């Protein structure tokens, strides 16, 4: 085995280096997959941070609250156009995503507290 590796180091150095590099990459990805799995398995982390691409209806689904709760928290009175991203909403209202996040969390916490039957 050792002799063979030495032989490859002499004759196929670049191929051997590429092999080691790719094995290293596989290890890195593997470890990352496992840590991510463990991290996201924690039920405390189930509420996703808001991202610009999300729509109010998607947020409602993700946080498992009625859409009206989200709409009210984001300051939308009438129903929104069918699809609108939070990014455009934030821009239209002069609000940052972080501000939206804070308002949403408050509203969701309130709703969950007043509707304990909805909690799994």
């Amino acid at each position: 085995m050792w002799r063979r590796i030495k032989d490859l180091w002499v004759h196929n150095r670049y191929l051997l280096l590429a092999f080691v590099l790719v094995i290293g990459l596989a290890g890195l990805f593997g470890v990352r997959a496992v840590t991510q799995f463990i991290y996201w398995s924690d039920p405390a982390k189930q509420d996703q941070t808001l991202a610009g691409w999300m729509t109010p209806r998607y947020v409602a689904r993700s946080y498992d609250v009625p859409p009206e709760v989200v709409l009210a928290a984001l300051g939308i009175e009438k129903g929104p156009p069918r699809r609108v991203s939070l990014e455009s909403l934030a821009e239209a209202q002069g609000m940052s995503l972080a501000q939206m996040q804070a308002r949403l969390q408050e509203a969701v916490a309130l709703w969950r507290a007043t509707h304990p039957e909805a909690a799994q």
Partner: protein
Amino acid sequence: MTDLVLLLAADYGVPLLFCITLLSCLALPVPSSLLMLSCGALAAAGDLSLPVVAAAAYCGAVIGDNLGYWIARRLGVRLSDWLGKNPKRAALRDRSQAFMTKWGGSSVFFSCWLVAPLGPYVNYVSGISRFSWPRFALWGMAGEVVWVGLYVGLGYGFADNITAISALFSSLSGFLAALVVATGLGFLLVRASRARDAAKRRRAK
């Protein structure tokens, strides 16, 4: 790039998805899997239609695969003199042709979804090595059903937490692609080393 593409998803969901899966099959670095997950999630929330999302992603992927194949095939015809002139290049071409004749169908099928990061390159190799187009197209169409079904389906089914699913799947897909490349390189290394041993034994006799 990734953020920009995702931000456009709510406004241009379906046509955007079509373009992005098409471009990703040509080896352009666009976030196709992430966009499929997000569009699947938007479909689960009722903001997009699931069948339309799946059809757009599928058509984009199949058209992109075949476009890549034909670009490479045309290029291969132009390059055939250049490839044939140098014995090393000619040997590489012959070897890739032999490989594709033997393993072409399954390479195309699995590179569509199981080792998706390698997919576009398999399309190009198929074209350059003049692998049979009907076989390429059929295996590719079958593979893309799995690819699109997997990502759009995961987005739809696990809509509650796209952040988690997309992170996990990008790692898993990187892991698998690296593993497949490592197996290929390991095979080449073992073969080279054995060939040298055999040559040494022949000299010793």
